[in-house]
């Protein structure tokens, strides 16, 4: 990937001095990310340590979103790989996951002990309702992008509704749903794009 030649920011780009710095930067940004690390990652990597231009970050993100798996984890892997190869990829991933994993599993263990307490069970139910709201908000945001779909808004919406019905209402196994709708969606998209 080319480092963009017309960097809008005047100062030259930096790079991690070693694997240690790579680990600590990803550790720091992961621990700041409540309910999602992506916005923090953009701020830290592009504006604070300046290892990437904004264009670089967007490009990595769009690749990360096209691939299966967690976007922000894919981005960490690709950045580590870019600077230090395979070792760098794993160090960036470890930095991103190590401390948060310890924290979240400690919470899970504590929850296991106190799950019987009505206040704790209630708090989790309330948090669960908010979590559902957050996921639905993300779905609504993404649904708005279907207006620009090469499939056309009608077809894209129909596919989204069909997926929701099969998965949420009829509780089909996901593999069946993707086997049924995936090839259809890809064929239609390819046909529209070819025109």
């Amino acid at each position, binding site marked *: 990937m080319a480092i963009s030649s017309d960097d809008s920011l005047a100062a030259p780009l930096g790079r991690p001095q070693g694997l240690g710095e790579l680990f600590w930067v990803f550790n720091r940004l992961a621990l700041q990310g409540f309910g999602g690390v992506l916005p923090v990652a953009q701020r830290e990597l592009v504006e604070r340590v300046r290892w990437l231009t904004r264009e670089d970050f967007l490009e990595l993100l769009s690749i990360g979103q096209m691939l299966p798996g967690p976007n922000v984890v894919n981005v960490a892997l690709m950045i580590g790989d870019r600077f230090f190869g395979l070792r760098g990829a794993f160090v960036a991933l470890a930095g991103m996951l190590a401390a948060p994993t310890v924290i979240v599993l400690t919470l899970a263990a504590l929850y296991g002990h106190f799950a019987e307490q009505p206040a704790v069970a209630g708090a989790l139910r309330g948090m*669960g309702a908010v979590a559902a709201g957050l996921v639905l908000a993300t779905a609504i945001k993404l649904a708005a992008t279907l207006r620009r779909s090469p499939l056309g808004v009608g077809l894209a919406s129909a596919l989204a509704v069909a*997926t929701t019905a099969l998965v949420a209402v009829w509780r089909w196994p996901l593999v069946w749903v993707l086997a049924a709708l995936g090839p259809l969606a890809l064929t239609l998209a390819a046909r529209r794009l070819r025109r």
Partner: protein
Amino acid sequence: MNVLSLGEYVELIGHFMVLSIIAIGGAITTAPEMHRYLVLERGWMSDAQFTGSIALAQAAPGPNILFVAVLGWTAAGPWGALVTMLGIMLPSTTLALAAARWGRARRDTLAVRAFTAGMAPLTVGLLFSTGWVLTEPTRTSAVALVLVVGSAALLLRTPVSPMWLIAAGAVSGALGWV
């Protein structure tokens, strides 16, 4: 927490490896399938435990993917967390590295563009499904409905941090309103 046999662990990691491959748009899109498998098919946790696990992970710092570790922990303790995390991570990380090295040049080919355009509506449908499945334990509660709709609306219309919304949900739940 359940004690799993070796065969069940193998099946668990296999199931999550398949989910890793089909999790376009993040692992949370496959949550309905995890729910179908862990709650309905296996009975390793209740509806409330499933949604609680995801809520717990969202309240903690770090990548959202860690909800998978909490689900594994709830299903089968530390080994469960390790197995589900390995399963969900291994295939997608391998693909991401391969793509980073060889896929860039091919990003504008018809096949890749058709794949992205075709999968987008399915991803949206999966996210709506996830939201719906997460409301399962609290569907009869009016206050919970207000929390669901209110937090979605606030997130869409204001720059509020999700942290405050989760905190509000925790407080109203702890007070016994939900």
